[in-house]
């Protein structure tokens, strides 16, 4: 990615990524074309891959728009939190959180999970 780090640049690359993946997998071409035709963000119409992009952006405080720029598909995003995180990330020397600090994170789910298996299933299905 270029050093011109901002929300727009980031998501354009993500969109480019999916376009390029589409060159490998025809099904992505169909999905992206479908998204372009719809010209709207709707979880009903989007695959979980595209939803992952949008979900992350929304989680990051962004607003998502999808426009038809023909090729490549351009997903324009206004991100505030993402940019802040990028700025924080600019420092290469970091004091890594200790294990105790990581343990402060608590999650609502109490079910045991094997994320490696789940992620493998996603990747196999997406590929």
């Amino acid at each position, binding site marked *: *990615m270029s050093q011109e780090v901002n929300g727009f640049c980031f998501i354009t690359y993500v969109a480019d*990524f999916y376009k390029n993946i589409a*060159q490998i997998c025809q099904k992505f071409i169909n999905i992206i074309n479908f998204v372009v035709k719809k010209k709207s963000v709707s979880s009903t119409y989007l695959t979980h891959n595209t939803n992952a992009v949008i979900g992350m952006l929304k989680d990051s405080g962004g607003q998502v728009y999808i426009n038809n720029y023909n090729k490549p598909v351009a997903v324009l995003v206004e991100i505030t939190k993402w940019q802040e995180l990028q700025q924080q*990330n600019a420092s290469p020397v970091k004091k890594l959180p200790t294990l105790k600090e990581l343990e402060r994170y608590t999650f609502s789910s109490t079910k045991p999970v094997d*994320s490696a298996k789940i992620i493998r299933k*996603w990747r196999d299905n997406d590929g």
Partner: protein
Amino acid sequence: MDKIVLDTSFLSALVNDKDTHHTSAKKQYAAILERPSVWLIVSVITLLELSRITWATPPERAGILSTIISKIASEIIYLDQNQMDYIEQLVSLDTNLKPNDFCIALTALRQRAELLTFDEKLIKGFAKLRHFQ
């Protein structure tokens, strides 16, 4: 400086104490903390995958991403045309890997980094890719 690519399965297991690999992830992370100089690399693919983990709520996922981006990752690797061209060449190889795997594996190869993952298929495919190189 030791370079390490952290795969999605590793990071997910590290932050979630309900994960099967949590204890192992903690041990490996503790070993990372003891290294004198380490550069932790996270692919944008991993961020995308973590954004859809099912065991966390959206705010929890945002918290995980924020921690990884701002506190753990020394560098986030994005995708560019060169990488995608390279991946297109690699898919013809018999590695049994999928596009997302290639992005992670390629990041580790190009950065000459170790790869931390709990995904057996990725481990095997990564070993094959190194062999092809």
